[in-house]
């Protein structure tokens, strides 16, 4: 078995809406290796969450998924039926959701909900499942783990519930965890704790982790690689070092301009902002999706679809017509490189 856990090529998600077809995810490709954290960043509505649901095959029933390649540990998930997918979900691939307050069933105890997954996938006794649940609850930093098992979700705080969700996802020892904005709904002070916990567990259990977020500060701390999404496309992808230190795409540069980075940001200048709004993704249109808001937009930008091109270093690519030198020069001018 290779180290490549997830391989996605040309993934699309289309959703029929009142006025036509919403092309929510437009042919994105990425991969995750064992022990690697991939952060997908982008603003709300850019297709991050749908991407993760598409990988899990948990899209709403009216949404259509398409892809050239969708492999989990060399197994083709495109040809896997619903039965096979349900064997994979929660077993070798788990997901943590945004809303800890509503992601647990109010009618059942924590223990019940933690144990049912492992009993479904692995041949374990109730006692073994319980033991594993207690072990993992302690791992995620919950005190009095044994007594928590008989509690109901409404008796726990949001932070605790998200810790329970994380422990629950780890029950079967998955190869890949997808965390979809796991801290958005939590208090700021809890957010960092939960994310660092995730990063720590990912290292300890040597899993692949896809973290979906719009918090660039978090990305900078825990990402191995970063994919920047804008309006249904990945506009820049590379190692965290590449994306943060040599951002090439004008959107990435704009994003980085918006956050203060110690030692880099010019204190005398106000923080940047990106004018304009995200285009509607209903109906086909061939143009650079960012052209509307891009300070460097040219006539060619709206004439055709823009393809990814390689940057100076291997593994770093971006979706823009400008050549690499120009991009680097722009980045330096903006003070984000």
């Amino acid at each position, binding site marked *: 078995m290779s180290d490549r856990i997830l391989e996605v090529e040309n993934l699309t998600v289309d959703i029929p809406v009142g*006025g036509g077809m919403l092309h929510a995810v437009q042919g994105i490709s990425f991969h995750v290796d064992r022990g690697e954290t991939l952060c997908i960043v982008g603003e709300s509505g850019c297709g991050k969450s749908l991407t993760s649901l598409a990988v899990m095959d948990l899209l709403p029933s009216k949404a259509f998924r398409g892809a050239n390649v969708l492999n989990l540990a060399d197994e083709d998930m495109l040809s896997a039926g619903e039965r096979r997918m349900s064997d994979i979900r929660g077993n070798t691939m788990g997901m943590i959701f945004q809303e800890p307050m509503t992601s647990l069933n109010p009618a059942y105890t924590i223990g019940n909900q933690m144990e049912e997954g492992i009993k479904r996938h692995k041949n374990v006794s109730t006692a073994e499942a319980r033991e594993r649940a207690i072990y993992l609850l302690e791992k995620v930093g919950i005190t009095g783990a044994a007594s928590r098992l008989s509690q109901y979700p409404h008796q726990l705080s949001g932070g605790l519930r998200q810790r329970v969700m994380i422990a629950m996802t780890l029950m079967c020892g998955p190869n890949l965890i997808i965390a979809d904005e796991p801290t958005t709904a939590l208090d700021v002070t809890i957010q960092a704790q939960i994310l660092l916990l995730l990063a720590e567990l990912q290292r300890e259990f040597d899993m692949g982790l896809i973290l979906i977020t719009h918090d660039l500060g978090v990305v900078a701390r825990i990402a191995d690689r970063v994919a920047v999404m804008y309006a249904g496309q990945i506009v820049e992808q590379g190692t965290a070092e590449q994306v943060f230190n040599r951002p090439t795409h004008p959107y990435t540069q704009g994003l980085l301009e918006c956050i203060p980075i110690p030692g880099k940001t010019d204190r005398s200048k106000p923080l940047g902002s990106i004018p304009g*709004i995200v*285009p*509607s993704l*209903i*109906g086909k*249109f061939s*143009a650079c999706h960012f*052209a*509307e*808001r*891009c300070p460097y*937009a*040219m*006539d060619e*930008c*709206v004439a055709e679809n823009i393809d990814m091109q390689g940057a100076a270093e291997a593994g770093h690519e971006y979706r823009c017509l400008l050549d690499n030198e120009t991009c680097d020069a722009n980045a330096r001018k903006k003070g984000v490189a």
Partner: protein
Amino acid sequence: MTDGSIKSRTGVHIEDRIIDEPSPGERARKRMFSHVGFMIGGFVLLVIIALAFLAPLISPHDPLDQQLARKLIPPIWHDHLKVTWAHPLGTDQFGRDYLSRLIHGSQISLLIGFSAMLISGVIGTALGVAAGYFGGRVDMVVNFLITTRLSMPVILVALAVVSLVGNSLTIVIWVLGLLIWDRFAVVMRSTTQQVRNLDYVVAAQAIGCSVPRIIFTEIMPNIVNNLIVVATIEMAHAIILEAALSFLGLGVQPPAPSWGLMIAEGKNHMLFDPWLIGIPGTALFILILAINLLGDGIRDVTAPENRN
């Protein structure tokens, strides 16, 4: 994005992707005309109302006129010797024209349904709005009244009261009206609770508007949709109850052509002349169905998010 198109900064037109948004009123009208149930229900109800108003003009015969010589003529679709176009729906066991009785019967159903709905609507809305608006003690008392009312079986109490007080159209209307206000109160209470915490109601309170003014100008317009929907449900309810009371012999009294009474009278001849109960029952079914479809339609058209 109000100008209907996006001008790119480079001066290039990308695509006109913004559709002109219709106003809420236009959208409601569009939904109304495309809502099959609403249109059918409304149309049928209008026809029945027209029949009721025009009954004396369009009935071929006097609904009370007994001609024992021509009794139990079957309706025209029956293959029978006595069948005649003079009595398209036949005659009953007293030789009264069934079509005329059916047309006049719609008057009774609509009158009782509408009046009882009006009485119960006034009681229930007053209680419900008061409970929802004032909350606290008032809410507790109203809730208690609703629970008490619900615990008493409607048909049984109605029958008992009518039998004790005596039965006339007016009494049946009042008894039903005084009994079926519960749904109005329940729905108006919860709707008012939702509306009263909205910003503009709080604002009206803050600038010192009087309570009646707030209730009538700020709250009522926002709960009137739900009120109409409940009104249709309760009108249908009252019509069914009247028919049941008359069927049991304690509602409208013979020889009045109430549909429930017609079914009761036809019951004894059901074996050989099933149309005697089939025709008034179908009329009752169509009327209730039309009112329910209209009510469901109003709910869907005014508040599509409340579907299901």
